[in-house]
């Protein structure tokens, strides 16, 4: 007899529906899985058999063939275990075919018959068209986010079969905690001093400007960057779903509510490999750090220590908002729209300080600065030198502004940007820029002076205008840019001594 059970598999961050066809018929007793399963998938034979026996079902002593259709698509992971087990029970007439009609099953089986969580549940459920979906109990909240299905969370195979037969009621879904209770992360008030740094993170958050922090070790670069997500507004429904889907596909822990509502913060160590940052892999296509940081912040601490290939691989995502990973077997597109925060030391000795005071030679500084390629450096609208806070500031009782207050201004500025049709001013096109960021006469004179001096290029000019627009928005001023905003934007783009061509 034959049974066909709908299930799904993961491809990148997208789900693909799969039909699990189970045939139990005459022949030498055996169990074969066909249809391009990967190693984990092929091993499901042993898990399913043990789970059936532990759950006190009969093992058919006949020829069992499982086909995963469409058979041209590679299937990975253990998420098809549950569908294969149910299919077997139906094909062996231990379970009525009518009871599983319009049900899809996703879950990994333990040898004792327990049902375990699988990565990428959100994307897989999204790919299903059945009315009801049975998932592991841990994944109930995540699977419910799709909202089109009746979701059943189960803990074991025997419980599932009993519920399908109507012998016991479906288990009560776990309580989802209130979303409002989620933590916002560290507060900006913890940062002492760092007035320029505070301006920089506020502008970065308000305008989606990529930020490069340059300063000696221990100055507070990482501290500032870690507070950036707290300044960003909560994710909208679409962004939240997108980020959740990516995190789920990568197998990362999700919050109890199942939905990631705060912008993520990712900070890979500088020993990270190219694949771990960009995504990919040989067996399964896993999203990399750039994708995990989608709609949030990607921080690269000690940016100069990252391999040049990894840094240059960031250029496509920064430009297009996606990464296209191509392998011999398949090509996947991962979303990768993030706010990049880089941190590095001003020079090899790390101390920097006022011009002429550091002990690094000019050549050493130039070599250090070359680790960031020009095109990458150019993506940073904000390049800010960070100095160590004064002793008095560290010990002083004066607290800085709280994240909440700053986040309020940021939200208002982002709303103004939203009215122009962009998420942040960093995304303004040249044509839009001409329309929404006119400059006053005074500001024009400042530009003229800097251009004549040679400290500003034509491309730099537009970037400065975008930042100036954000500064004006933060001040609640919608009119043309005056010299204060332009000068502040120029100050926030101060190329630290190591990074300008030394002469």
């Amino acid at each position, binding site marked *: 007899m034959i049974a066909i059970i709908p299930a799904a598999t993961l491809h990148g961050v997208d789900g693909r529906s799969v039909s699990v066809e189970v045939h139990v018929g005459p022949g030498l007793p055996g169990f074969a899985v066909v249809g391009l399963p990967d190693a984990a998938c092929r091993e499901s034979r042993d898990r399913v058999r043990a789970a059936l026996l532990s759950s006190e079902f009969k093992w058919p002593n006949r020829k069992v063939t499982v086909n995963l259709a469409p058979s041209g698509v590679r299937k990975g992971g253990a998420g098809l275990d549950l569908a294969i087990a149910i299919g077997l029970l139906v094909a062996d007439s231990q379970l009525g075919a009518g009871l599983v009609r319009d049900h899809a099953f996703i879950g990994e089986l333990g040898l004792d018959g327990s049902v375990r969580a699988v990565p990428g549940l959100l994307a897989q459920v999204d790919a299903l068209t059945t009315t009801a979906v049975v998932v592991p109990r841990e994944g109930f909240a995540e699977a419910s986010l799709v909202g089109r299905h009746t979701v059943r969370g189960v803990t074991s195979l025997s419980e599932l079969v009993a519920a399908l037969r109507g012998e016991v009621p479906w288990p009560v879904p776990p309580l989802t905690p209130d979303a409002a209770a989620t933590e916002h992360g560290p507060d900006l008030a913890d940062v002492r001093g760092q007035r320029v740094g505070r301006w920089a993170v506020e502008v970065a958050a308000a305008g989606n400007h990529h930020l490069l922090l340059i300063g000696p070790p221990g100055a507070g670069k990482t501290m500032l960057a870690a507070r950036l997500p707290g300044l960003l507004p909560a994710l909208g429904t679409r962004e939240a779903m997108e980020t959740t889907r990516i995190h789920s596909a990568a197998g990362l822990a999700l919050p109890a509510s199942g939905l990631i509502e705060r912008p993520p913060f990712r900070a890979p160590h500088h020993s990270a490999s190219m694949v771990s940052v960009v995504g990919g892999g040989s067996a399964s296509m896993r999203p990399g750090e750039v994708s995990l940081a989608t709609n949030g912040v990607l921080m690269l601490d000690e940016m100069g220590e990252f391999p040049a290939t990894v840094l240059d691989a960031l250029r496509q995502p920064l430009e297009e908002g996606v990464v296209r990973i191509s392998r011999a077997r398949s090509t996947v597109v991962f979303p990768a729209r993030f706010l990049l925060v880089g941190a590095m030391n001003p020079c090899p000795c790390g101390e920097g300080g006022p*011009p*002429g005071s550091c*002990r690094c030679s*000019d050549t050493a500084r130039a070599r250090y600065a070359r680790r960031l390629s020009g095109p990458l450096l150019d993506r940073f609208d904000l390049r800010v030198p960070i100095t160590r806070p004064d002793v008095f500031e560290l010990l002083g009782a004066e607290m800085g502004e709280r994240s909440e207050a700053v986040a309020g201004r940021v939200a208002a500025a982002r709303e103004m940007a939203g009215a122009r049709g962009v998420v942040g001013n960093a995304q303004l096109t040249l044509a839009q820029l001409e329309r929404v960021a006119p400059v006053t006469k005074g500001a024009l*004179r400042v530009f003229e002076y800097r251009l004549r001096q040679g400290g500003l290029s034509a491309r730099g000019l537009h970037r400065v205008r975008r930042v100036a627009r954000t500064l004006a928005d933060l001040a609640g001023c919608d009119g043309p840019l005056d010299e204060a905003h332009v000068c502040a934007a120029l100050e926030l783009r101060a190329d630290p001594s190591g990074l300008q061509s030394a002469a």
Partner: protein
Amino acid sequence: MSAALPDQAWLAALAHLPGMWPTRLAAVLDLARGEAGAGPPPPGRAAAEAWERILNGRVMLDPRVRARCGHEPDLVWRQWRTAALESDVARLWQVYRAAAVELHVLGGPGYPACLTADPRPPYLLCSAGSLEALDGPRAAIVGTRRCTTMGREIAAQFGRELAEAGIRVVSGLALGIDGAAHAGALSAHAAPPVGVVAAGLDRPYPARHRRLWQTVALQGVLMSEAPLGTETAPWRFPARNRILAAVADVVVVVESHRTGGSMITADQALGRGVPVLAVPGPIRSVASAGTNHLLREGAPPACDVEDILVALSLDRSARTPTPTLFDTRGGETRPAVHNEVLSALDWTPTSVEVVLGRTGRPLPDVAAALAALEMAGLVRGGAGWWERAGPSASASPAPTVGE
């Protein structure tokens, strides 16, 4: 074949032999001169003669040459001979001709007179340009490569004003102070510049000063102890500084760290009785630690070009009044925030962070004030550091920003 080539060609060939250090070259040439004629050195044949002796091995019969050749003189000679047999003297000479580089040997014709009396004169000197540039008062302006903006400006200003006063500016053409001094001197289009470098004259170092080297050779003279094709090596810089000190009539150290090449130049100059002047700097600036040390040791300060002219005994009679450093002109007409920002700035680089802290004003106000003050020539900066600018910086008229 040897007859067709001038003696300078053989001299170049000798200098290019491996292990032919200045002391050995001196011994080999002295030997050739001594035997060719008992009297004064014969003009024009000594180097060719020495070459012959190296080929036929007679050079090693001389005890003075042997004494200079270490423990195994014969090994050294075999190296010389192998290299001499392989070398193409005519082609090498072509390279020198093409580069317009002349060779001078101590005591020979054309050797600069100011170096002859030196306790440790360079035995061989390569020059590009005209050695006549040395005829006249010469002031060396030296300093650190890691200089401050202020130091660079002072060097350029001294260079320009000295050249205008007819003083030949001498420096090592290195990055930082040296380069700035010569850039200033060249901008005056007056007295010819003199560059003393450590590498071969066809190997500009640092590479980005290639243009500067060419200009100096064109308008003045460029000198080096090293034959063409020699790359720099750490030991060559102190050796070069010795020549620098020997050529100069006065040495001005603009900025120097506590240790460094400029301090060696100053030492060398003092050892030769050449006056050393130092530009006073802020006591907290590490780039002025060396110059301030010199001042403490008794070096006269160089606060303007007059001080240098006095040291050269060339004081211009009418001293122009120097504008006071604590210039408060226009203070009443500036908006309050500009004055606040100005008083929050030090005369050494001050970070924007500190200015924000001292004024307690938001970044846009401070940034606008800094830009306006910069255009008015009262401050200078960039890269997140600002400092007040001296009166000389405001010499170039700049547009003022409307309030």
